[in-house]
């Protein structure tokens, strides 16, 4: 089903919860709406009640006041009846009587026309005169009868009241004569009484209506002033209209109604009913308004409490119901979805089943319980179509049992077996029946696997018949078996030990070679933890850590690389091995496969070579064998790891050996032995040296303690010395001396070591011969000449212009000349090109700079024979000082034979090594290619890099004969040639440096062809790799090793000179051009001057002048010329400075120490080395001005400073490389007591603690191969300590930098000084 449809169905009914929520919201809104309507209704109802109440109160007020209005009229009538004579007292009595009847009146009185009180209820007021008061005048001027509201005044002390007045015409005594008297009757009615009545009325109404809260009322004047209210305000009277009270305004305007408003005093919402006293003419002056109010809350309170009860009750019921509704909706939806998904799944699974069946490569048929075919899959149909076996229905509907049982001919028997199998399964005897049968087609062999299984659907039995073509499996299985056999053969025959380890660190593979290398037998090793067996104890933890780390994040293993590490032998000793590790990921975890090679021999070889080299070096530098003995013994002993060494000298006269020097790595431990050795003298045949002297051959004793002929056995045993060897030093067949060495182990004779010493002997002899020759020049020339002449090596002496002064017969015959032919000739005659052309240059350079390029080292080169052929020679040259001239001596040895032997040795060793290496790489690394060719010549394996290297894909290559493949001709020829050779010899054949072109580039291949023999013929296995890179590296390495520090320096100096030369040249050209321009300008200006002087200066001349200025760009020239001049001068100075420095630096100096200014020497060296440090560091010097002159060999001293500066620059370069920053080199000198101190500090990498003791050792270097010879610091030490009696020390901190501190004595060591004084 479509994914969109699925997502739709899952969305179905998702609106239900929304609907429920929406409905709830609508309901809530409706409830609130209804509530507000109900409230409004309630308010309206209450308002109308209040309105009615207000009206009632107003009417009541009206009635009350109207009665009072009637009162005064009655009173006035009664007063008028009284006779004139009795007036006064009678009136007062009448008034008092009335007052008794109506106590609500505060005061009653009668005033005459003049305003005098003539009678009153209150006697105190009688006789008061109000004639002038405004009150009285107002009354007198007003209508005859009136009622009005009055504020208190002196007539009464009571509060507010309503005053009624009526004017009365009282007839006079003499009715005819006198005019009737006008009198004024006044009554005052108390508002307080009025309030009490109103309050009473309200209380009645409250009780009647059932109000919960007391009603409030206000009675207002027409102006809005409050006359009376429920709770009179203590302060001044209030005007509600002024306060803006709506109801007050409405009331005084004569309307009746109710209004909602805010209580001004309490600030709560209130409901006010308002009305006005009915309009009545008599009381029109009053027109009071009545307000009756109650709190809105009080109105709503009853319904609110009901609502709360209903809401809480309803909520308790509603929310659980609501929640339940949501939950059940959710559940319903889920059930619906599940049902839907299930339906989809079943539909899909049906389709899936069908398509799966169709996708299966097996031929499937489904039968019912009688064997009738119900359905078949696509593969079945296809197979049927291909083989025209079945009808268009592909057998559907037919009975498969019948088909099988009716089958006859080839395969008939198998068909019957299948039928039996089906029956067995149907009857339930077996759950499954499996059988295999061949069914070969006309053009190919085929095998089938038939599998019958039963299943039940809705109680109906069904059978599945499954035919599977297993031809490929069978073929592949056979191929696999063959390939495994081949791999096993390769692994077991490999020269390297093969070890396999599972991811728990247990050994699972252990080749025969591994037994040999590590000492453990395969059955001992299998299943053991690898770490405990072959990893040295100190590294075990690290090994396990590394393994764990690899298993966690796949990092940390040096896969596919060659690692040089230490292995652990069964005998409990470490030894160097080379390891290549590959990881194979298997279903059960990782499998680590490693090839290990024992490097012990190689390391030993390297040590031997180093020792040999060092000794040669020492011999060249030493003055005599005895003088060099301590160093030689030390060098050999330390390099080879022997403990004690001794040099014995043959005393011809006494016929005995005497010790001429000893050395021990730990002299304290074997002091006794050393002392005895130094004292000993041995006769021929006595002791180890004696035996060697006698036999003239190297001798070896595995353990001197067990040797019978060893006089020093006691002290040797005490010192723990066991194995020893000695070899003779022969000088032209004469015994010269013996060198012997001891070690603390018991060792079997070591042939390579002895071989090495054989060759050393030759070199020592050569050295002795040279020395002898030199001595002879001084003392016994003829004798020496004879030695020279009998020397087997060629010896030649030339002067400093290359003219041959002496040759010995050996040399002459080596080059094919008669001895006399060469003397007086140029040495160049013996040199082939290009040495011949360059030799003058070499000599010239040496004469000028004193820089030795070939002197003092033995090197291999070519010599030119008289017949024009060249021969390989070993050349050792040295210089001797004769008076003021130099002479050069060369010892030359014909090494053609040795070369050939060497080459053959190297070649055979290489062959063996390479064969294994290639196999290792094929199996463990990724760079190799691997091709198998079977007996028929067809390619069966095309693995590794074959595809990418040869551009032929696996599918194209497999099955085709090799020559048919589109391979390059050269490669194909090499392969065929190799195969021919292999079939002839039945042994592996190696082809090297086979050139081919790959992606437009030259590429070199190396491969090995191994025969795979069979009784039927030969197959071939090609294993090889692209060695282009390796060849290139080897080539580069060889080149780089020839590098000389001086050569490098020369390049730097060239740069230093070339740069200023460049710009000085450019500037001079610029100045010259500019001068030409200036001359033109000058000419114009002269013109101008001339014409000006003549007074004929015209604008044209001035314009020409300007144009010339413009043309020459005069401003630019004026600006640039001084700069160019300054820079040129500076450049010339720079050149001069470096040339001066070079001269100082290369100062040939004398062989003797001369007092020298070290500051100056350091400055020169700094300048010469400028190019070495200027890009990586700033160099500062702090040179003490008071530094005394120091006796010094300037040349070597400069060399020391140069080496230290170059080292410092390299150390800094390692830190700042790529950062664009610069480090610091600081050089300081100081005079300290009897010594001069030189400190050279750098901010470089620093020297790790571990290697600090080794840095002064010869050949020790941390620089990449080819960038350093490892001699720099060794030379520095030698120069400072040995030649100057000074000290050199190092202070260093990793990450901070290094300081070398040199101390040189200011005074010459004593013996030298004595000699000086003697001279």
């Amino acid at each position, binding site marked *: 089903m479509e994914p969109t449809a699925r997502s739709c169905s899952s969305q179905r009914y998702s609106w239900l919860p929304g609907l429920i929520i929406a409905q709830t919201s609508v309901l809530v809104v409706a409830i609130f709406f209804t509530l507000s309507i109900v409230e409004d209704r309630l308010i309206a109802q209450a308002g109308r009640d209040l309105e009615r109440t207000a009206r009632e109160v107003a009417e009541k007020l009206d009635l009350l006041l109207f009665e009072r209005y009637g009162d005064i009229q009655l009173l006035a009538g009664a007063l008028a009846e009284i006779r004139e004579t009795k007036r006064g007292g009678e009136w007062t009595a009448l008034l008092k009587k009335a007052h008794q009847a109506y106590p609500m009146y505060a005061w009653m009185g009668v005033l005459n026309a003049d305003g005098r009180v003539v009678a009153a209820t209150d006697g105190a007021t009688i006789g008061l005169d109000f004639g002038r008061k405004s009150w009285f005048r107002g009354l007198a001027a007003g209508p005859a009868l009136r009622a009005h509201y009055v504020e208190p005044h002196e007539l009464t002390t009571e509060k507010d009241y309503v005053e009624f007045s009526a004017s009365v015409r009282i007839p006079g005594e003499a009715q005819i004569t006198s005019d009737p008297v006008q009198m004024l009757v006044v009554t005052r009615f108390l508002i307080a009484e009025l309030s009490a009545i109103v309050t009473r009325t309200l209380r009645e109404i409250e009780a009647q209506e059932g109000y919960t809260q007391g009603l409030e009322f206000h009675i207002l004047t027409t102006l809005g002033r409050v006359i009376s209210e429920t709770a009179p305000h203590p302060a001044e009277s209030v005007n509600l209209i002024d306060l803006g009270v709506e109801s007050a305004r409405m009331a005084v305007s004569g309307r009746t109604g109710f209004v909602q408003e805010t209580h001004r005093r309490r600030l709560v919402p209130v409901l006010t009913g308002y009305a006005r006293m009915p309009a009545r003419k008599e009381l029109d002056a009053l027109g009071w308004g009545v307000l009756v109010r109650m709190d809105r809350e009080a109105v709503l309170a009853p319904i609110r409490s009901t609502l709360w009860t209903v809401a809480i009750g309803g909520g308790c019921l509603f929310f659980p119901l609501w929640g339940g509704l949501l939950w059940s909706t959710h559940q319903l939806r889920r059930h619906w979805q599940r049902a839907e998904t299930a339906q989809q799944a079943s539909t899909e699974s049906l389709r899936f089943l069908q398509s799966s069946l169709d996708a299966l490569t097996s031929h499937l048929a489904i039968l019912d319980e009688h064997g009738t075919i119900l359905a078949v899959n696509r593969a079945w149909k296809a197979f049927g179509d291909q083989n025209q076996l079945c009808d268009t229905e592909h057998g559907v509907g037919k009975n498969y049992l019948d088909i099988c049982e009716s089958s006859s001919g080839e395969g008939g028997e198998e068909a019957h077996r299948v039928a039996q199998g089906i029956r067995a399964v149907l009857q339930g005897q077996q759950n499954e029946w499996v059988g295999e049968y061949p069914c070969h087609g006309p053009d190919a062999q085929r095998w089938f696997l038939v599998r019958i299984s039963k299943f039940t659907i809705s109680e109906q039995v069904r059978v599945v018949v499954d035919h599977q073509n297993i031809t490929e499996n069978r073929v592949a299985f056979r191929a696999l078996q063959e390939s495994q056999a081949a791999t096993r053969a390769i692994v077991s025959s490999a020269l390297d030990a093969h070890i396999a380890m599972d991811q728990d660190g247990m050994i699972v593979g252990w080749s025969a070679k591994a037994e040999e290398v590590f000492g453990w037998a395969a059955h001992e090793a299998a299943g053991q933890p690898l770490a405990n067996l072959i990893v040295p104890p100190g590294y075990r933890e690290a090994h396990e850590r590394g393994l764990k780390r690899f298993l966690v994040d796949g990092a940390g293993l040096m896969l596919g690389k060659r690692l040089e590490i230490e292995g652990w032998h069964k005998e409990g000793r470490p030894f160097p091995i080379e390891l290549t590790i590959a990881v194979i990921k298997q279903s059960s975890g990782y499998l680590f496969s490693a090839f290990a090679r024992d490097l012990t021999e190689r390391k030993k070889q390297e040590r031997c070579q180093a020792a040999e080299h060092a000794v040669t070096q020492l011999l060249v530098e030493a003055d005599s064998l005895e003088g060099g003995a301590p160093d030689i013994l030390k060098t050999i002993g330390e390099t080879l790891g022997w403990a004690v060494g001794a040099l014995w000298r043959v005393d011809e006269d006494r016929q005995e050996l005497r010790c001429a020097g000893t050395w021990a790595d730990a002299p304290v431990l074997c002091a006794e032995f050393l002392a005895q050795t130094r004292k000993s003298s041995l006769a021929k045949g006595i002791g180890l040296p004696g035996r060697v002297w006698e036999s003239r051959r190297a001798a070896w004793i595995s353990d001197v303690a067990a040797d019978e002929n060893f006089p020093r056995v006691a002290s040797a045993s005490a010192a723990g010395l066991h194995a020893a060897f000695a070899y003779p030093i022969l000088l032209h067949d004469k015994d010269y001396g013996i060198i012997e060495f001891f070690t603390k182990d018991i060792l079997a004779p070591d042939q390579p070591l002895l071989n090495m010493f054989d060759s050393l002997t030759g070199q020592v002899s050569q050295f002795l011969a040279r020395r002898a020759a030199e001595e002879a020049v001084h003392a016994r020339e003829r004798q020496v000449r004879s030695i020279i002449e009998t020397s087997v090596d060629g010896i030649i002496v030339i002067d400093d212009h290359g003219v041959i002064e002496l040759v010995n017969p050996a040399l002459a015959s080596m080059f094919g000349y008669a001895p006399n032919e060469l003397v007086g000739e140029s040495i160049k005659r013996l040199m082939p090109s290009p040495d011949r052309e360059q030799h003058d240059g070499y000599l010239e350079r040496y004469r000028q700079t004193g820089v030795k390029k070939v002197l003092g080292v033995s090197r291999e080169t070519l010599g030119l024979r008289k017949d024009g052929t060249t021969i390989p020679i070993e050349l050792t040259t040295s210089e001797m000082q004769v008076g003021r001239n130099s002479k050069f001596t060369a010892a030359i040895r014909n090494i053609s034979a040795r070369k050939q032997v060497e080459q053959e040795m190297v070649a055979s060793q290489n062959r063996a090594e390479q064969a294994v290496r290639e196999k290792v790489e094929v199996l463990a690394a990724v760079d190799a290619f691997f091709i198998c060719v079977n007996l028929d010549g067809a390619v069966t394996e095309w693995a590794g890099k074959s595809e990418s290297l040869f551009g032929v894909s696996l599918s194209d290559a497999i099955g085709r004969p090799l020559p048919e493949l589109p391979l390059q001709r050269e490669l194909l020829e090499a392969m065929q040639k190799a195969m021919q050779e292999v079939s002839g010899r039945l042994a592996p054949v190696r082809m090297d440096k086979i050139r081919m072109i790959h992606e437009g580039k030259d590429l070199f291949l190396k491969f090995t062809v191994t025969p795979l023999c069979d009784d039927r013929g030969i197959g071939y296995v090609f294993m090889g790799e692209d060695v282009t890179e390796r060849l290139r590296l080897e080539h580069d390495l060889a*080149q780089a090793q020839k590098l000389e520090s001086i050569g490098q320096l020369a390049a730097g100096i060239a740069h*230093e000179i*070339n740069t200023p030369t460049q*710009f000085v040249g450019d500037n001079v*050209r610029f100045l010259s051009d500019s001068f030409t321009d200036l001359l033109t300008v000058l000419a114009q200006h002269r013109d101008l001057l001339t014409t000006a002087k003549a007074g004929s200066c015209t604008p044209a001349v001035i314009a020409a002048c300007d144009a010339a200025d413009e043309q020459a760009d005069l401003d630019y020239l004026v600006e640039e010329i001084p700069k160019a001049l300054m820079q040129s001068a500076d450049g010339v100075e720079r050149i001069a400075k470096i040339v001066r420095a070079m001269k100082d630096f290369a100062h040939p100096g004398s062989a003797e120490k001369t007092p020298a200014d070290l500051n100056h020497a350091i400055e020169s060296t700094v300048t010469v080395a400028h190019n070495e440090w200027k*890009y990586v560091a700033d160099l500062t010097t702090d040179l003490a001005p008071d530094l005394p002159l120091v006796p010094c060999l300037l040349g070597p001293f400069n060399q020391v400073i140069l080496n230290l500066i170059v080292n410092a620059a390299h150390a800094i370069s390692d830190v700042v490389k790529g950062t664009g920053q610069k480090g610091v080199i600081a050089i300081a000198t100081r005079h300290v007591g009897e010594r001069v101190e030189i400190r050279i500090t750098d901010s470089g990498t620093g020297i790790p603690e571990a290697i600090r003791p080794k840095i002064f050792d010869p050949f020790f270097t941390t620089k990449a191969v080819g960038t350093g010879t490892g001699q720099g610091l060794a030379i520095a030490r030698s120069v400072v300590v040995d030649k100057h009696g000074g000290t050199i020390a190092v202070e260093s901190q990793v990450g901070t930098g290094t300081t070398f501190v040199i101390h040189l004595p200011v005074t010459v060591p004593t013996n030298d000084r004595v000699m000086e004084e003697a001279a």
Partner: protein
Amino acid sequence: MEEKKTATILVIDDDESIREALRRTLRRDGYTVMEAAEGGEGLLVLKHHHVDVVLVDLFMPGKEGLETIAELRRSYSDITIIAMSGGGIRGQMDMLETARLMGASQTLAKPFARETLIETVKQAVRRE
């Protein structure tokens, strides 16, 4: 002067004297010259100005010549590069040859004559 050559040349060299001397020479021949004291600065100049030919020294503090050439080749394929050096040899490598391999179309070994410079630049501009 006759028709002006408008090509712009960027000189990258840590030695000010060299830069100025080259500027004087090239300016005289009508080129516009810009200067930078090391590779990084040179690349900065290129960001803001059109340059036809870059004359670059191989040994400089900061960004070295070869690095600069590599960067130039990556970012400005249309610029012609001329490498120059006074040393030429470092270790066993001919640096000028290396520079050529890395994409410098011409090389100049210091000290070179003015005519050589002019001829080389002329070729470079024509190439461009």
